[in-house]
């Protein structure tokens, strides 16, 4: 184990996987100088045939990633901010998410997309969106959203070894967060949630940038005598329904927290699963703490107002009457 920043763990995964497999290449705008830090040093190590700055043309870059798989490459396409996923959305939604089905399974599509998502930095509406809901709706794309350094490394390595397209979404606000990362080969499987904190009174299901917030909320709740269980989904496609259902079975109460807009967001989907397969376990309404149906404002106070927070999570838990169980 060693302590590393979230962004360093990503960088390590890229290094290791590019060392392991020479068919892995990384392209994107400004990846050579590695402005997010995740690609730092790769250009110096692997050179221009493995790491390459592209022109600004997201619509083509996404389609090119698909084309390059025909030549046997695993393409890592760095899309910078999740908002630019919309710019390159056509080939993602119409080609990559559908191509394997449309060809009757002739092909595998080993592409890893990287994009930073989420608010908190006064980056305003065009640099603060979370794109995972629209990606989740496409059907043919895996979506990994690590909440900590170890998962950042392990999930990215899994993505790069997978034969399927995957979005690896970096929590923009978490890049500097420290965490323990196992030494040596460390892979985190897709579709296996983690119990980030065990608890008996309420389940808080979350992913990515808000896991930390939920853990902080759980701490606050604990001080008030409520033991919250925090489930970190790690990947939203595939999604570990069993973990969610098992947790609700234990606690009977659910608050879903994530950093995406509410309408057709990730939180709504998880709530829907609970309302169906978990219904028998539920003792109270399923609450959602996420982003209201607005674009992200610039001014810090106005931005904070629309982001998930410890206060909102605690309030949601209290609203559904989670109480300390009799011992």
């Amino acid at each position, binding site marked *: 184990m060693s302590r590393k920043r979230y962004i360093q763990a990503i960088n390590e995964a890229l290094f290791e996987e590019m060392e392991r497999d020479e068919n892995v290449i990384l392209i994107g705008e400004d990846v050579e100088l590695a402005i997010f830090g995740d690609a730092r040093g790769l250009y110096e190590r692997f050179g221009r045939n493995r790491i390459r700055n592209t022109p600004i*043309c997201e619509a083509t870059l996404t*389609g*090119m990633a698909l*084309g390059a798989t025909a*030549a046997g490459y695993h393409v890592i396409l760095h899309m910078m901010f999740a908002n630019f996923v919309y710019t390159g959305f056509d*080939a993602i939604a119409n080609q990559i998410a559908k191509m394997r*089905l*449309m060809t*009757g399974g002739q092909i*595998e599509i080993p592409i890893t997309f990287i994009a930073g998502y989420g608010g908190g930095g006064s980056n305003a509406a065009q640099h603060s969106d979370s794109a995972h809901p629209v990606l989740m709706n496409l059907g043919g794309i895996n979506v990994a959203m690590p909440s900590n350094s170890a998962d950042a490394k392990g999930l990215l390595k899994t993505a790069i070894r997978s034969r399927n397209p995957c979005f690896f979404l970096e929590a923009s606000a978490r890049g500097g967060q420290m965490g323990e990362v196992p030494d040596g080969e460390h892979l985190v499987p897709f579709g296996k949630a983690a119990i980030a904190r065990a608890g008996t009174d309420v389940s808080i299901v979350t992913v990515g940038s808000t896991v930390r917030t939920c853990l902080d909320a759980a701490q606050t709740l604990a001080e008030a005598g409520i033991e919250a269980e925090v489930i970190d989904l790690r990947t939203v496609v595939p999604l570990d329904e069993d973990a969610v259902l098992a947790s609700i079975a234990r606690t009977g109460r659910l608050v879903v927290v994530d950093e995406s807009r509410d309408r057709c967001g990730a939180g709504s989907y998880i709530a829907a699963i609970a309302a169906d397969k978990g219904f028998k376990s539920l003792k109270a309404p399923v609450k959602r703490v996420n982003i209201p149906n607005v674009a992200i404002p610039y001014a810090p106070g106005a931005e904070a107002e629309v982001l998930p927070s410890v206060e909102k999570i605690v309030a949601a838990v209290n609203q559904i009457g989670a109480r300390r169980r009799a011992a």
Partner: protein
Amino acid sequence: MNVAQASKLQSGAEAMPDKGTCLNLYSRMLLIRRAEECLARLSQEGKFPGAVHLYIGQEAVAVGVCSTLEARDWITSTHRGHGHFLAKGGELKSMYAEIWGRADGICRGMGGSMHVADFSKGILGANGIVGGGFAIATGAAFGAKLRADGRVAVCFFGDGAANQGVFMESMNVSSAWELPTIFVCENNGLSEFTVSSTVTGGALVDRARAFMPTTIVDGNDVLAVRAATEKAVARARSGKGPSYIECITYRIRGHLEAEEAFLAGGKYRTAPEIAAWQTPERDPVSRFESFLGRQGMADAAVLSAIQQEVADSVEKAVAHAEAGEPADTKLAYSLMFAGQEA
């Protein structure tokens, strides 16, 4: 371009391939023609689900271009993709089976006419998104460039697609990185039910000229298309970068079969305009047939043998498709991901 202008374009006759090659060109074009005619007929009879966009009139482009390619080379195709599929070596039987929605279709019935693909033969798919092939071809070409293996990627696209911005983006990447991408514009003057010139600024070729060598050829002259492509392929294989070839041609059938139902009496072109492109001198197939005769490459017997062979293939393919099993109705769940249920 109208017929008179198209006729003035340089002919490809001087770069004459040998007889065997010529007969192959002929039989491939004829196969496409007959296969498409058959689809037109059976579409009216409601023999298969879904719509088809037929390639009749443009056969010389696909065949001329693909005759210069190796099996390992790639093509990306369009919504009007049967001709490209067959020209690049796709199997008629499995294409028909696909259009019929059969389990043994080339895409197991999941894609249909607009998505016929055979990656094992470098056919990266017909595409229902106009302009969808640009980036895919460019990405494949990028792969070839990185491997320095001499493979090339041909992107077929229409004059309508040339208004999609991905056209410029792909040319830019191909040019900046000297990729072996060959941009083949099939300029048939039409973009669905819109006359392309009414929605197009300037000349398409000038867009390409900003990035790479360009040429305009008579797209109904299979040898002219072939000759132009040979140059582009040589340039691409030797690592020098992309080329643009504009083939002036015409679509004889409607945008899709049964377009009348959509048009409800509306018109976007005239009967004489169509007829002008169907004369024996303009039609790519009959024109090349006469040419073979004039060159002494094929007498009536040779031609009729080829015609018979083609007719047999089409007939067999229909019988095969008709007799096929319907596609597996549960397949979608397992096909979205490799090794992972949807």
